[in-house]
């Protein structure tokens, strides 16, 4: 395995890990372990890695040759913990078996095409989350019904908004505005007693759970730059949710 090949596999695995929502310290750790397994951490050779949630920089130093660097910019991140799990298994396999580059690339291709849940199933899961949280926070059956319906609608709206690649702030403002607007209109029509339980239930779909968890785990691992990035992202989403809901409620209760 030469420097070019090690650069290729580590950058592919690292970029995919970041893209599917792994913590940053896991990315750096995996790359370091792979480099160590192929003997790139001794005899004057070295692999240096710098990762943040939006980009990945790897430099491979092989003795007397010029060092090789690759930068990968990660633009579209989507949470898929199943693929993170499989990538984790792959890097463990790479460390113990030390396979050829072609074998690793074939495994990566397999992981890239692993099945995800279909669109209707995901829409249903949004609905279930909305309905159960409306009940959880003390709503009645009607609240749960409307929270579920609004959540399903929100899933399709957020897919639509995703196509224009907005900032996370804009996306959460739009989704939260739609949730609150429909909830207020429904309660003004006299279908539900109040709109608060419906809004809380449906808004649980927008809570940045994975971002906050990754943020905490990056801080613990000492990766403060990545931790700050994800913390600010989570705060922006929360502020966006508040702005969207507040504007919708003030607008539609006045009408």
């Amino acid at each position, binding site marked *: 395995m030469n420097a070019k090949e090690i650069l290729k596999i580590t950058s592919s695995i690292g970029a995919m890990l970041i893209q599917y929502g792994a913590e940053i310290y896991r990315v750096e750790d995996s790359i370091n372990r792979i480099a160590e397994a192929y003997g790139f951490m001794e005899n004057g050779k070295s692999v240096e890695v710098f990762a943040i949630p939006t980009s990945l920089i790897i430099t491979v130093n092989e003795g007397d040759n010029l060092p090789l660097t690759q930068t990968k910019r990660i633009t579209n991140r989507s949470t898929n913990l199943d693929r993170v799990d499989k990538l984790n298994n792959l890097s463990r396999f790479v460390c113990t078996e030390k396979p050829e580059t072609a074998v690793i690339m074939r495994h990566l291709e397999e992981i890239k095409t692993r099945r995800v849940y279909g669109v209707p199933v995901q829409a249903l*899961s949004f609905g*279930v989350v909305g309905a159960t949280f409306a009940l959880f*926070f003390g709503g009645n059956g009607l609240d749960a019904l409307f929270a579920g319906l609004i959540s399903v609608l929100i899933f399709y709206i957020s897919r639509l908004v995703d196509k224009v690649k907005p900032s996370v702030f804009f996306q959460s403002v739009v989704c939260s505005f739609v949730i609150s607007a429909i909830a207020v209109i429904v309660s003004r029509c006299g279908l539900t007693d109040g709109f608060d339980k419906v809004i809380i239930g449906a808004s649980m779909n927008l809570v940045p759970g994975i971002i906050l968890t990754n943020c905490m785990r990056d801080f613990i691992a000492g990766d403060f730059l990545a931790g700050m990035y994800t913390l600010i992202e989570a705060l922006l989403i929360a502020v966006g949710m508040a702005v969207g809901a507040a504007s919708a409620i003030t607008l539609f209760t006045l009408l």
Partner: protein
Amino acid sequence: MEELNIAEQLVLPCLYSLIASAAFGVQFNIKLRHMITAAIGATITQLIFISYELSGTREMLCYFFSAAAVSVYAELMARRLHVPVNMYLVIGVIPLVPGGYMYNTMITLIGGDVNAFLPQFAKAFGIAGSIAMGVFVVSAFIRLVRVIYFTVRYKGSKLFFR
């Protein structure tokens, strides 16, 4: 002591957190086997939270201890089944998210009454902080244990006879 309504105070919230956390598992694309384990973790969290709450512990401590408990569960199960820890951790803390307090914060902010807003804001932020601290303490401790374990196991002799 007040009469305990088991169905309403204990069984229903646990059931809701089981269903909701399983649905969150679908959103994060977790496969069925891990989804069930994660959802059971969320249910245990909810059970621990309710038992602390009923025993009259202060609210922030309830959140802290429940978050610590789910963190322990996530770390143990993840080591056992060889998956990334955050798969179970994300799902496990879902029932603790203080959605109601955050909503009240926003509503009192619209109302414009600062004296009503500040306590709600402090509470929502405090709860989020205590959940984070609960996860923080356990994860940091387990990390420390792991580092010591691996150092002693693989570099034991070098460590002491350098």
